[in-house]
């Protein structure tokens, strides 16, 4: 790089506009993107945002608090099923009623599951959360209450949300903005939570729980609350997913969906807020594109990508992008040097 030119050295300030540049740029791009996108890509982006919310919620429990869970999809499924059952079986039409109900149900289930699961830790926590998720899968498939839950196939033909706005129709663009709005709200809320004192405590718990306890924190309570919040946001994703795809099934409670969430978080970058978003975008986008070109071999390519990212991009994609951005910023701040 050559010797730094000390006279034009400008260390970046705290409130430097440049820091927010990525947010502003990305935000603007996302807002005007639908003007350029064909509708099928709008639907794809909407799906990416839904799973980005799911991945971010998982990240709060896993990346920030350090609780490795294999049953996160349970809350996703509860959110989707609860809100859809209210609409389809009990005739409650307004989205503003069923969505909070679904989210609340997800949080309640998270409270119950969290209470059970947090009695153990580590590998056993992993197994308990896995079992609880699969428990819901088996319950959803049970035939006895097939009239309500739809049995093995789940619920189909779920109507789009009734927002109560006259003249509002659901198409690619309206879904895109609706879900983008939900995503932005979730991102903002999670950002505040992650950067609040609470957020710092749970990260401290991730780094070393005994130390935090020695400092006087009731670590169990913090873990429990983090678990419930994570479950709540997973419920948000589920509440959006069910009317968007017009279907939801038992597999959406289970390990396959949970594992997808894990992949988004790890590939994108655990412990960072934006990482899982990138992970969801990359994985869903690649699956979409690759399967169009090799409809028979896409799982091979996807699996290879997981392996490559884990082996060579330790920490996920996002931290590396941040690194690149920081280096670029430093170079700018140092001023150009002849090299």
């Amino acid at each position, binding site marked *: 790089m050559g010797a730094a030119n000390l006279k034009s050295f400008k260390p970046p300030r705290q409130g430097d506009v440049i820091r927010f540049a990525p947010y502003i740029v990305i935000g603007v791009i996302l807002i005007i993107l639908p003007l*350029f*996108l*064909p*509708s*099928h*890509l709008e*639907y*794809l982006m909407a*799906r990416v945002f839904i799973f980005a919310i799911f991945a971010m919620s998982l990240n709060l429990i896993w990346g920030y608090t350090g609780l490795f869970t294999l049953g996160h999809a349970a809350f996703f499924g509860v959110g989707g099923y609860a809100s859809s059952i209210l609409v389809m079986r009990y005739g409650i039409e307004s989205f503003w009623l069923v969505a909070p109900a679904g989210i609340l149900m997800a949080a309640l289930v998270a409270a119950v599951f969290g209470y059970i699961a947090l009695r153990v830790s580590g590998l056993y926590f992993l197994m308990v959360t896995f079992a609880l998720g699969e428990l819901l899968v088996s319950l959803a*498939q049970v*035939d006895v209450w*097939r009239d309500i839950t739809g*049995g*093995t*196939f789940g619920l*189909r*033909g779920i109507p789009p949300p009734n927002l109560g706005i006259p003249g509002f129709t659901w198409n690619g663009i309206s879904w895109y903005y609706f879900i983008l709005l939900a995503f932005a709200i979730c991102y903002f809320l999670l950002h505040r939570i992650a950067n609040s004192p609470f957020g710092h405590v749970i990260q401290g718990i991730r780094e070393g729980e005994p130390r935090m306890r020695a400092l006087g924190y009731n670590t169990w309570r913090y873990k429990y609350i983090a678990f419930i919040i994570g479950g709540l946001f997973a419920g948000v994703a589920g509440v959006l997913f069910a009317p968007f*795809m*017009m*279907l939801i*099934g038992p*597999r959406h409670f289970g390990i396959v969906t949970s594992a997808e969430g894990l992949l988004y978080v790890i590939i994108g970058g655990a412990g960072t807020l934006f990482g899982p978003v990138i992970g969801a*975008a*990359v994985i869903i*986008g*690649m*699956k*979409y*594109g*690759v*399967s*169009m*070109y090799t*409809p*028979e071999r*896409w*799982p091979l390519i996807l699996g290879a*990508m997981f392996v*490559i*990212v884990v082996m*060579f*991009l330790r920490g996920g*994609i996002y931290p*590396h*992008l941040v690194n*690149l951005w920081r280096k670029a910023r430093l170079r700018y701040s140092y001023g150009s040097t002849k090299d």
Partner: protein
Amino acid sequence: MKNKFLVILLALMLVTSLVITGCIPAPAPVEPVEPIKIGAICCLTGDMSFWGAGSKRGLEFGFAEVDWEIAGRPLELFVEDDATWDEVMALEAARKLVEVHGVDILMGPIASSSYLGTGSYIDVMKIPTLGLCYRGEFETWEEPTWNFSAHGAIAQRGYALGQYAYEVLGFRTATTMGADYETGYQGAGSFSDGFYDAGGSVIQQQWAPPTEIEWGPYNAVVEDADCTAVIQYGSCMHSYIKSWYEFGFWDKQPLLLITPCTVFESDLEAFGDWTTGLYSATSYVTTLDTPANQKFVADFEAMYGQKPIFPDIWGYVSALWARTMLEGAGDDITNYALRDALLDSTIETPIGPITFHGDEGWTTIPMYIIQAQQVGGEMTWQVVEAYPAVGKAKYYTKMPPGTWTR
């Protein structure tokens, strides 16, 4: 620097995927004649992938027969995957085909869950959609929708087999084993219905999840009856047949396959000649003794080096339906024209004549009772009874235990 390279590589891959999928639309080449585009959602990965591969073969064979051209316009076939059980992927595949490739006709997903997942989208987009296979289920048909299942229904098979079991084979009591989803309900329900209508009684209905592999516990509680009819999913059918033999039921409680589904002749051969005598009901076997079929089998074998199996013929029938629609619509290939060309039309196939009654959504199709027999040292499916035109079937749901006695 290795990391940076890989990050850039990944970013490039993502951007390229987006670009290729149409983010930045490529300029459309000016072509003298616009091709006809047909999209197919086949399950190319996942555990029914051999079925998807067969459908694709049958489709390609059917279009190759007309040299990939109808009324002077070239045909283009786009195939997407739906990973067998993934409804989300099926819906995305339908979107890609309709919105990226702009297909005129869609060939529907195969697995029931995918089929049901794409249903609303197809109705909204009004794309004429043909099935790729006989249906395991159909919703009540209230008006012609855009999802045409012109290959017949599993219920037609089950009913025919149920009647045959009582009238010809002389069974008076039966049990059923069905997969616990739509196809199973249709199959077991229709068999029970046919058996009842003929005078018999079904004394037990067993249900197993569609991907069950361990059959011991089910065999431990099966009731004694004259026969057992089974409809199970794909490869699980094989282990079920094997367990039926090993648990000693084969001779005292003959097994009837409500649909042969994935029990191909090669599988009969691999199992051994104890499978002789196995009955099933379906619309097609390669040994069908008609000139049309003999020609079809010969041509197919010449092109692919193997005899057609069940998914191949159904893919071929789909291609025949598509050709009928396109030829009937003439120059103006709009979705309404295509649909009109399909409703109440008949095609001649190696199976025989198939008529689609569009207004009511059912198909008249020949049905055959087949039996596994050893011919010339090889296990084959042979026709033992023919029903030239089986008509409308009822819609069956899973009945709660105890209510299927009449």
